[in-house]
């Protein structure tokens, strides 16, 4: 596991976390949630846009199917179940990254969720939420969280593969 500043692209600062051989990159212009989503607000008091971090996308790989079980406008608790995702390798329920009101979903993904893989930090955003966002982490905090949980994540994945 390495944490370093990626200096190849000076215009866009990012942190790197090594998932085995894979270098997952995390732009520093946004916050992160513990459930491996990034959050970016256009300004004080404006909604946060959420998407999957490179870590989540790497775990999922090619996304086949994305479904939301709540409607835009819904008030959500943190960790409330809001949908499900299925990819070539994995499936997961999805949970609210923070408490607040869900403003809108990225409609483009509903017809073709592959946008998540193509541009996870941009066009592949998932939804927007209003909320205080006090539980969100800075990029550095998120990397510490990743480092602390990577061993377990690895074992979860390998364990399930071995069982299957």
């Amino acid at each position, binding site marked *: 596991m390495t944490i370093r500043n990626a200096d190849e692209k000076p215009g866009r600062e990012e942190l790197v976390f090594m998932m085995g051989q894979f270098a997952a990159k995390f732009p520093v212009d946004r916050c992160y*949630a*513990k*459930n*491996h989503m990034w959050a970016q607000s256009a300004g004080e008091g404006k909604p946060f846009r959420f998407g999957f971090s490179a870590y*989540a996308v790497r*775990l*999922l790989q090619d996304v086949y199917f994305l479904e939301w079980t709540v409607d835009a406008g819904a008030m959500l608790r943190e*960790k409330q179940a809001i949908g499900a995702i*299925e*990819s070539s*390798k*994995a*499936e*997961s*329920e*999805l*949970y609210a*990254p923070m408490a607040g009101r869900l403003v809108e979903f990225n409609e483009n993904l509903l017809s073709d969720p592959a946008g998540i893989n193509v541009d996870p930090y941009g066009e592949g955003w998932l939804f927007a939420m209003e909320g205080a966002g006090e539980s969100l982490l800075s990029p550095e905090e998120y990397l510490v969280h990743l480092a*602390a*949980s990577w061993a*377990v*994540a690895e*074992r*979860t*994945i390998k*364990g*399930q*593969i071995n*069982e*299957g």
Partner: protein
Amino acid sequence: MAKKVTVVISQGQSANPVKRKLEEDLVAALLFERGVEVTVIPHLYDLAPEGTGMLCLQSIAGDVVVLSWLYPRAARWTLDRNGIRGRVGKVLLESEAADEDEEDEAADDGDKPRVADSLPAPNRTIYCIDLRARNEVEPFVEEIRRIWAEASMQTVGIDLLGWIQGAPKPEQLGRYLNPGPANVDAPPANAQPAASGPVLFSPFTLQPIEPASGDKQLNGAAPKGSQPNGSAPASSEPADGAPAGPVRVEEATGRRWYPVIDYSRCTNCLECLDFCLFGVYGVGGSETILVEQPDNCRKGCPACSRVCPENAIIFPQHKTPAIAGSPEGSAGALKIDLSKLFGAPDAMEVAVLERDVELVAVGRDAVGATVGIPKRQSQKDHGPKDELDSLMDQLDSLDL
């Protein structure tokens, strides 16, 4: 000597035309199958405990194949709760996604005593088949033929062994010397030419009633409670070899919602009894947990099943396959479930929230985690932790 197998088709809850078509195509296809009697009932899970449908099912003797829009475990234990019990028949037809061998019942955890261990199964076999396993009729018919052959072989085998070993039972001798209508293996000798139309049950008795005009004469109506030849009371096998009509049970059912306990998993720990605050659970004569007041259950709430340490509580209509009674490891077994890594709350947190929602809905106070939360945390440390335990502990402590 053809043995008889009763095939029960449990209809879907909705009038979904695709489902109805599969059901009716099956009825039609099975009419021409040797040794098969067809009974059509409304959705098994929705049948009232003392209703016509359950009474009809209870009156069926001998081997039964139950086809329903339910996971086989859910169907099996719904039947069990209503006194329709038997050995578990091995069904080879499974949904294509779940093809891998999942001998979940017999596998692992041989250490803990299960409630089912103390309940000997009656000498008959019940095969539960999920109608969602295939979209066409043929695979189901093939599987039923296979089951029929298997069932016929068993009887012959047992009977013959008795003979060969020189120990025929009196009934066996009688059957040999006096083949007749009381004989399980022989078709009823007194069968009259019968209608091929449906046989209807009136709502409150088990006697077949005259179907609407257009259908022909009915077979002799068996009085309530008598099933001498091991089939449904209204067996209408004609003598001329023409197909018998299916038995159709008409019962007005509403949608129900209640837990079904899988006693092959249940260890009688009674945590569900402590957790549920709506009085659904009770303890039976032999100190065994049972669903005492199913209709006290709160529609849509699966909280107790999340609390159950053995995943023994099934809500057949819940959207999560594991709660609805899917076979262990199926339903996407080939894919990795990342929910825990992607922030899934602890099952207990969810259960407490779900229960609070239902409490508030009936005007009671939310209790949070203060009431009926399993003492299992305090007891769990007995016995060495296995690898999975430690992994789960780590996951929990990490607050992912």
